[in-house]
Structures are given as C-alpha cells and as structure tokens.
C-alpha cells in the first residue's frame, strides 16, 4: 500500500508544533525508517498513520484515499509497540488470534491462522503460556505475530528492539527483514538507532523537531548528507568535524589550502565552514591531498582495527588504523584524507555547500577496489 502524508501538523499544547508541516511518501512494499532522537515526533507521526492521533491539519492518504477520519480498527494496519503491549490476561495463542476475532473470523480458521503466524516467528511451543511467562525476545515475537496475523496492508514497528539485548537485537533484525521481504508488506520502523535504520530500511527519514531533515536511501544519507545534523547522526563512529573557511573557491583548513571551485554549489561562496571527514576516510601517512598532524590522545582496540583519537589543534579526530601498529598516546603522527571524501557544511545554516557526490562514481571506484584482490587470489589459485 502506498502511503502519503501531506502537510501534516500536530500540536499537543497549542503552542508548539510536535509535527510541523510534514511531508512523506512511502511506496508500496517499501520498508522505511523514521530516525531521530527521542522527542523528535517520530512516534507521534506513526500513531497518526495508525489512526490513534488525528492530525490538526494536512492529509494522510492510503493508496490515494484520504483516511484522516478512518478509525484505527478500519485501517487494517498491524503494529508492534516498544512495550509490546501484549494482553497479559490472554494466552499467546489468544493474543495472536485477537485481531482475527475482531474480524469475526471463524474459530477454527482463526486458530489455524494464529498458529501459522506463530510458526513464522518460531513460537509454536509457547502457544498456551501467558505473556508474563515469556522472555523479552519471545514477547517481542508474539507482538510481531499479532501484528502480521491479519495480513495488514501496513506494518508499523515502534522501536521494537530497544528492549532486547545486543545479540537478540541482531537476531530479530534479520528476522524482521526476512519477514518483511517474505510478506512484501509496506513497513514503517521508528527508531533512534541509526544502525538499525541503516541495516533494515530501504529509505530513511531523518527527523528533528517534528520535521523531516532528509529522506533518502541509507547509502545516500551516508555519502550525501544534506546538512550537519544528518552527517552527525549517521555513521559509527560518528563523523569528525573541523572548523575552516572558504575564500574564493579555496578551502582553508589548519593552514592548508585546497581548491574546491568546481565542486561548490555556488561558486562565489565565502565564509566559515564545518568540514566533516568520516573515520573510514582517514588513513595514516600522507597519501591523501588533505594532510593533517596531531598528538594521539588514546587508542581503542577493536580487534580488526584500532580506533585512535588524535588531537588536531583543539578538535579531536578519530580514525581507524591497522590493529598491529604500535601506537601509544603522546605520539605525534601524520594522517591524511582525500579532498573528494570531505563533507563541507555552511558554518551558519549548517547546509551542504558542495555539489552532491555521484553515488555511481563512488560505487565504481569501490567495486574496482573490492574485485581486484579477489581477482588476484583467483589468479594465484588458477
């Protein structure tokens, strides 16, 4: 089902808008994520789509039909709540069959379908338990089965994994992904975990203060952040930021100069800027055309890499190095990045001032890098 939100505004206290003129469109079968810090209005947006809240103004369209006044029960959506919201007085089977009971599905068919839904989330052996007798992960799966049992046109997931431990979360993530692909159901995921959004969603709407800041694919959000907010939010570890300025098409950064002219959105741009560099785009040594140096503050060993924290001027820069290098705090080191990997934002408006990077070009250059060692391997063995 295709879903459109048009100029949605919602206020709870009549003074400030929780949701401010929000526009969003979701294609049929698409999996999107609403991503943002708590209190940014993502759950409110979801509850409006579910029909629990009514927007103050604007339209919600399901397949082109306005559903503002349609009761939640008639919208045919399934939802998993953060707290799971299971019915504690019913058994697992009754919980899952509850939506069917409301549709007046006959008892035998109801139980049959509930059992099937339970089987898709591997709950067969817990059917006659009460929710209180289940672990968090099992409760979450009951909630998921209850949401999908009536074959809804839309699946809403409100921070479904925030109460699970790390291992279970990764397990559930693939479970949800598998289920969504299998059922081909339009899905909206609300989360504050950017990694969860990145791994699951086809498109992510990054939200802030009731507005959508950027709505794009995970790759585009990562490589083409529209502004500082998105750049800061997406990616682990987070992007590094340095203060500099642009004059006559030249970037001035820590006494270094880099020509930008052709890449600037407006050629005559002058002023203070914030330069963002992803930790993955920095390497030791001086291969790149932006070279910096600083003092190591501390080193975090991860295993496949070392994450080192270097103080450059008065800003901390973090990047990955080979884990077997003997790097200790206090060392002075030189490192570099390619100017093409830089993200540059206006110091005041915090908007991107460079032209969009060409994702296709990035893919091409990366594909070459990935295939080459592989090809070399096969040559060796051949």
């Amino acid at each position: 089902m295709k879903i459109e939100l048009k100029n949605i505004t919602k206020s709870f206290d009549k003074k400030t808008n929780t949701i401010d003129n929000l526009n969003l469109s979701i294609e049929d079968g698409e999996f999107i994520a609403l991503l943002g810090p708590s209190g940014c209005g993502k759950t409110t947006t979801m509850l409006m789509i579910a029909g629990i809240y009514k927007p103050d103004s604007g339209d919600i369209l399901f397949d082109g039909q306005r559903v503002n006044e349609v009761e939640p029960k008639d919208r045919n959506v399934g939802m998993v709540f953060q707290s799971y919201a299971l019915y504690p007085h019913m058994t697992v089977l009754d919980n899952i069959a509850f939506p069917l009971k409301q549709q007046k599905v006959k008892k035998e068919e109801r139980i049959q379908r509930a059992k099937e839904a339970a089987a898709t989330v591997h709950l067969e052996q817990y059917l006659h338990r009460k929710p209180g007798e289940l672990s968090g992960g099992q409760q979450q799966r009951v909630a998921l089965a209850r949401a999908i049992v009536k074959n809804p046109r839309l699946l809403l997931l409100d921070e479904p994994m925030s109460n699970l431990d790390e291992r279970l979360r990764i397990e559930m993530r693939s479970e949800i992904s598998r289920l969504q692909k299998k059922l081909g159901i339009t899905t909206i995921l609300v989360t504050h975990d950017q990694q969860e959004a990145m791994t699951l969603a086809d498109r992510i709407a990054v939200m802030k203060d009731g507005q959508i800041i950027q709505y794009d694919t995970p790759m585009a959000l990562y490589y083409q952040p529209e502004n500082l907010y998105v750049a800061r939010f997406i990616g682990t570890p987070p992007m590094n930021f340095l203060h500099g300025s642009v004059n006559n098409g030249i970037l001035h950064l820590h006494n270094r100069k880099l020509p930008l002219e052709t890449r600037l959105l407006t050629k005559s741009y002058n002023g203070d800027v914030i330069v963002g560099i992803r930790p993955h785009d920095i390497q030791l040594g001086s291969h790149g055309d932006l070279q910096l140096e600083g003092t190591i503050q501390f080193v975090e060993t991860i295993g496949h890499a070392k994450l080192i924290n270097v103080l450059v001027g008065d800003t901390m820069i973090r990047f990955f190095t080979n884990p077997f290098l003997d790097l200790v705090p206090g060392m002075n080191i030189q490192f570099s990045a390619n100017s093409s990997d830089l993200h540059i934002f206006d110091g005041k408006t915090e908007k991107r001032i460079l032209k969009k990077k060409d994702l296709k070009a990035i893919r091409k250059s990366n594909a070459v890098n990935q295939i080459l060692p592989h090809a070399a391997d096969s040559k060796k063995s051949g």
Partner: protein
Amino acid sequence: MDSAQATVTIPRQKSRIYILKKRLPYFIAYGVLGITTLPIIFMYLWLFLNSFFQKMKFGIIPESFTLENWSFLWEPIVYRGSELPSIWTATWNSFVFAGTMTILEVLIGVMSGYALSRIQFPGRKFILTTTMLLHAFPSISLLIAVFYILNFFGLYDSLFGVILVKTALQIPMTTWIIKGFFDDVPWDVEWAGLIDGCSRIKVWFQIVLPLIKPGIASISIFSFLSGWSEFLLLYTFIVSGDNITLASFLQKLTSDPNLVNYSLLGAISLFYMIPVLIFFIFTQKSLMQVSSGGIKNA
C-alpha cells in the same frame, strides 16, 4: 551441597541451639502479637459459646448446651411485649441493600474512574481535587439535609432511597480507588486493541476491564462490607418493620439496657457475621492482590 556438609560436621545439639537462636526474634514477635490479640479472640470465643449455652459459670465456663438462643431462626422474637419482624426479612433486606449498593457503586465507579483516568474534558482536574472533599463529609452531618431530600422525592422509609444516599457518599472513594487501577493500564495496550480492530468501547470491555479485575474485586468487597455494616442511615431513614435490616434489628434488641438478652444478642451477632465471613473467604485472593498493586508486567 554446602549446607548438607555443614549439618554433618556440626554436632546435633549445637545446631539445635543455633536454630533456636536464629528463630528467637520470631518467637518474641509472635509471642507479643499473640498476647495482644488474645482479648479479641477471647471476645469472639465468648460470643460463640454464650450463644450455645444456657449459663456461663464465673462468666467464662459454659454450662448446659442449648439451641434456645438460635430459635430466632424459625420463630419470631418477642421483645418488650411485641413481636419483632422475622430475622429473614431483615437478612433479605440487608442483602438487597448491600448487593444493590455494590452493583451501583461498581458500575458508576468503573465508568467514572475510567473517564477521570483517561479522558480529557473540561473540569477534570477540578473534579479530581474535589471528589475527595465530598468523601470527607461524615454522613451524620448530612442527616437533616438528606431527610428533606428523601422526603421530597417520596423515598423516605424506602430501602432504595437509602441505597442512593449511601452510594452517593461512597462513590468518590470508589472512583479514586478504581482510577488508580486504570492509571496502571498502559496506553500502549489500549492502542494495540484499537489497532487490532476494536472500537474504544470494545477495548474497554475486552482488554481494559479484564486487566483491572483485582480493582473491581476490591471495590465490590469494600462496598459490600460497608453496605452490610451500614447502620446510621438505615436507622434514621427506615421506620417500618418490613424494611428493617440486620443492623437495625440488633439495635432494637439493645434499645432497653435492662432487658438485653446477651445470649440472644450474641447468637444474632454471629448470624450477622456469617455472610461477611463467607464473602471474605471467597474474595480473599483478590484482596491480597490489591496490596501488591494491580497489574503485573503489562
């Protein structure tokens, strides 16, 4: 494993002393509590024995068993020359009074409690803060006003009239108790019901009410007990023998201090207690749940 080894190595007597020492605080606590409760237990025991025996030697040792005092069950009591109404009429009336009151209180309390807990409407806060004030009026201070009102509506000397009065006085407290239970039901569960295909009323009946069952049980117990033991309002506003309740019935037997038959009074008091005891035995479980607070892991 460890504890089993320990009991083997420690000589028996030593461990016995050890156990005694460990339990000493309990012995003291139960001892003190037991002694202070004794008079009350003795009182009930005396009441019980007194009703089944003709005489109490030195006031405590029962002599010659008799059922004479319980004859009120099958024949009317003659007191000060006139026949009192049948005990069964009084019992029936007490049941009607307490039962109707319970039903009314639960119905109204559950609805108003939900509204106060969940629905935003103008004046909600004002109602919340003033309902408790209503409960603060002792019924004795309202007697005259209530008399005028009942008289005006022609409900004087009618059980139903007193039921309305007593219910009105009880509702604020009931509503407050049950509101607390509704507050504990998470919004998520209610919303899940709406999304799963219920209307709001249906969610209320199928999901919210089952979740606050312990609350409903507790308010029905409290209102039944307070209705069963109500005396003042009934004594004041009910005059005819047909509408008499057990509490007033007992009062009639003690109206003349010189003529009180304590054995008969004891028997009727015990009879008066039986339904309460039975009711309590059956509802004890729900009452216990109340103290531990409504709903688990919703």
